[in-house]
């Protein structure tokens, strides 16, 4: 049969965003792929050069629509590195809780989007049901449901609200029970197993060479979690281990990537519970906004030559921010902001992983890498 190119995207159910995957097929077999990115490039890095350091935070929220909180935190840590701020420990704990709730919500969004990709809409509804709980918690913290603008340079916007600890514990424990429903629906379904096992092998050494990070890399057996390898917040004070999947010789298949995310959701839930217990001052006390226990005074300007950098464990991989100070004459703006998006690096590799499989595996493989185009195109 003759080979032909199929253009999947920019409007296609498989894409989970706005991009194009050109697939060369021979019958049903994929022979070649070309990913085509950049449809929603907004120039966030350039916009940031004309904003002062506080104004940049909401822009970073908008980098990823599934996991806004982690991106604004990622920026905030880099900015604190640049401005040399010491953050109160209570604020670090609150940030950790917010980020881990966001991680669960993001992984639930991934699982909810992945199951319709291989033909089951029920899991989508189940996942969004639990994601709703997580969004309710984030709404209590940040006041919004999608773009929270929660962290501040030097601390957090406000303290845990009254009764938050109780509600958070209840919902997280409920979530830990409900996660068994997914395992019953997916792990015990032969069709799910034959659709995901043995499909989309990604070799660990190739992933390291390409710079793939996050759950996709840990699915291949490489124990690299920024929270664990280079602990930045109070992660080293909590008792946890990163979830790493023991993959086969051929590498990590879609099922490994599914398992590692499911385990990571459990880890995140336990981290939240631990953080609620160990937060200095107790989770029930409430400080007014601007209290020194929540936010430290930070300089508003960085002079020319100062640089700030931070790498952060995003739900999709290792996100990095690089800031150079001294943007305008008074040093209010950054001179340059550079963002390292994990998915921008993962998507070309995921497209390579598809070669040799069938067309029906395109959504199964691509979806398992959890693409988010907002951060990819920046």
């Amino acid at each position, binding site marked *: 049969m003759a080979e*032909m190119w*199929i253009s*999947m995207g920019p409007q*296609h*159910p*498989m894409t989970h965003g706005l991009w194009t995957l050109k697939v060369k097929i*021979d019958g*049903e*077999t*994929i*022979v*070649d792929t070309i990913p085509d990115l950049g449809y929603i490039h907004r120039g966030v890095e350039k916009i940031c050069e004309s904003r002062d350091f506080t104004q940049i935070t909401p822009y970073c929220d908008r980098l990823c629509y599934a996991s806004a909180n982690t991106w604004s935190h990622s920026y905030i840590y880099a900015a604190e590195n640049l401005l040399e701020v010491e953050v109160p420990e209570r604020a670090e704990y609150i940030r950790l809780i917010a980020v881990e709730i966001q991680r669960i919500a993001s992984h639930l969004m991934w699982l909810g989007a992945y*199951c*319709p*990709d*291989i*033909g*089951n*809409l*029920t899991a989508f*509804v*189940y996942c969004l*049901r639990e994601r*709703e*709980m997580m969004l*309710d918690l984030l709404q209590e913290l940040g006041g919004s449901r999608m773009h929270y603008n929660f962290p501040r340079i030097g601390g957090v916007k406000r303290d845990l609200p009254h009764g938050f600890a109780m509600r958070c514990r*209840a*919902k997280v424990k*409920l979530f830990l029970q409900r996660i068994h*429903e997914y395992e019953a*629906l997916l*792990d015990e*379904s*032969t*069709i*799910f*197993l*034959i*659709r995901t*096992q*043995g499909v989309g092998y990604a070799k660990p050494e190739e992933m390291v060479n390409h710079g793939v990070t996050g759950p996709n890399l840990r699915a291949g057996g490489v124990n690299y979690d920024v929270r664990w390898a280079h602990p930045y917040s109070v992660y080293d004070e909590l008792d946890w281990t990163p979830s790493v999947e023991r993959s086969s010789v051929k590498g990590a298949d879609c*099922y490994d990537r599914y*398992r590692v995310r499911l385990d990571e959701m459990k880890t995140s839930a336990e981290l939240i519970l631990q953080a609620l217990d160990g937060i200095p001052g107790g989770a029930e006390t409430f400080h007014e906004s601007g209290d020194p226990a929540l936010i430290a005074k930070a300089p508003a300007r960085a002079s020319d030559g100062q640089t700030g950098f931070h790498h952060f464990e995003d739900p999709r991989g290792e996100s990095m921010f690089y800031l150079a100070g001294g943007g305008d004459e008074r040093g209010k703006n950054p001179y340059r902001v550079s963002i390292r998006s994990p998915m921008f690096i993962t998507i070309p590799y995921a497209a390579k992983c598809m*070669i*040799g*499989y*069938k*067309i*029906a*595996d*395109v*959504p199964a493989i691509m979806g398992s890498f959890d693409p988010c185009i907002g951060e990819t195109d920046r």
Partner: protein
Amino acid sequence: MAADDWFDVRGAVAWVTEQTMDKTIGMTRFWEQKYWLSEFSAEFAMAGIIFVVTMLAVLGPVWMERKLIARLMDHRGSTIAIRSLWTGEGNIRVEWWKDLPFGIGVPIGWINGFLWNNFGNESSNPKVTQVGNRSYAGWWWALPGMINNFADFTKFAIKEHMPPRDADQVTYEVAPFIIISTTLLVFAFIPYGPSLYAANPDLSLVYMMAIFGIAPLGVFFAGWASNNKYTLIGGMRSAAQLTAYEIPLLVTVLGIAVLSGTLNIIEIAEFQMNNTLGSVWNIFLMPLGAALFLITMIAEVERTPFDMPEAEAELVEGWWTEYGGMRWGLLFASEYLRALAACLLFSLFFLGGWEFPFEDSLIALPLVGGIFGALFQVVPHSAWLLMKAWLVFGFFIWVRASLHRVRTDQILEFGWRYLLPLSVIQLGLSIWLRLGVYDGGPWPLVVPALITVVAVVLFVVLVLDEDEEALAEQRRPYHVSEINKASPGARINLED
């Protein structure tokens, strides 16, 4: 006997036409032609009645698809119970019976209060689980959501017809006609009851399977003529899948015909109920055949997990991507018509047709037998058949809600490697049952009981046959046949 009740549609139609023809004797020159004229008009009227009945019956699956799948997906939600259709549930509970006059609604209130108090959904976390039954308006008798189907139909009807510019215009326009007309023709020989059928030739089973097999041709035409790569792949997949599943289906149906000793659908149904006591439904005689028939029929009507030809994740909408407006609406309706036909055929072949479960035994009961006898006199038997068909469709929806989509190569492998040999085994079993066991009278009760027990035990063993240790250790409990990676450099170059 289940064969005769007061709902004698054919008899009524024949009587009316006869009377009409009698009245016209002497007024027309063709009075000698009375007999064929009356027969012709009777058949014509029956065809019209069956068409109307089919169109009304298919509203059931379309409505069920919406309501039941919503309830399956809204696990732990407030609409999980079917009674939420008529009373509401969760934080919205409508006690409409209190408005009924003279307090006649009090017993209804007792029943619903009992259900709420004992089987209501747990709302340990009110903000999460109680979304509320938003669509509920209190008019349970109007089947909430049913009117949506008519709104959808109106929307399809007023849309513009836009064929793709480079499509093969003739084939593009002809393909929906092939699919829709053959789908309607399926219902020509499907009986809705002992006297509610359009036609009843001796070989209706053969015709049925032949007409079922024409639609894939139309699907292939549609996929090719749309001049779109997605539709082309969808049409190809459809052709491959339907040929792979047509053969096991035919062999299974042959097994039914052998067991029943006839190629007529009505006689197959009557074979399961024509003995006063000891009549046995085919599902207890050939459970394997029932499973095979159900699986192949799900594949034939292209529902999940075999909806590969229209896999929306990778092929957008498969072979009907380029159809819009009324053509899409009719294709979609024909999809449900085919599903309804599959459910009706399953009920007729395996679930005893229009017989109520244990009907004769219930009538023969000492005390309450009279009540049951009156019930079966009052309710036409067609109602039982329709209910069975809708229940089978409920099973289809359950399957759709719980399973994923199988890949093309896995579908074909499953069809050729497992279903075909199993259907041949089933044919052999049917031949043995017919020739070795059946003696023309009622079945000895030991035979269906033994077969059913063996089937249930086999099913349980197969379900439990998992490598628990492998599941715990490696999480790789199933053998997965892996695809060899294509290596573009090593391919044979056909142009050289």
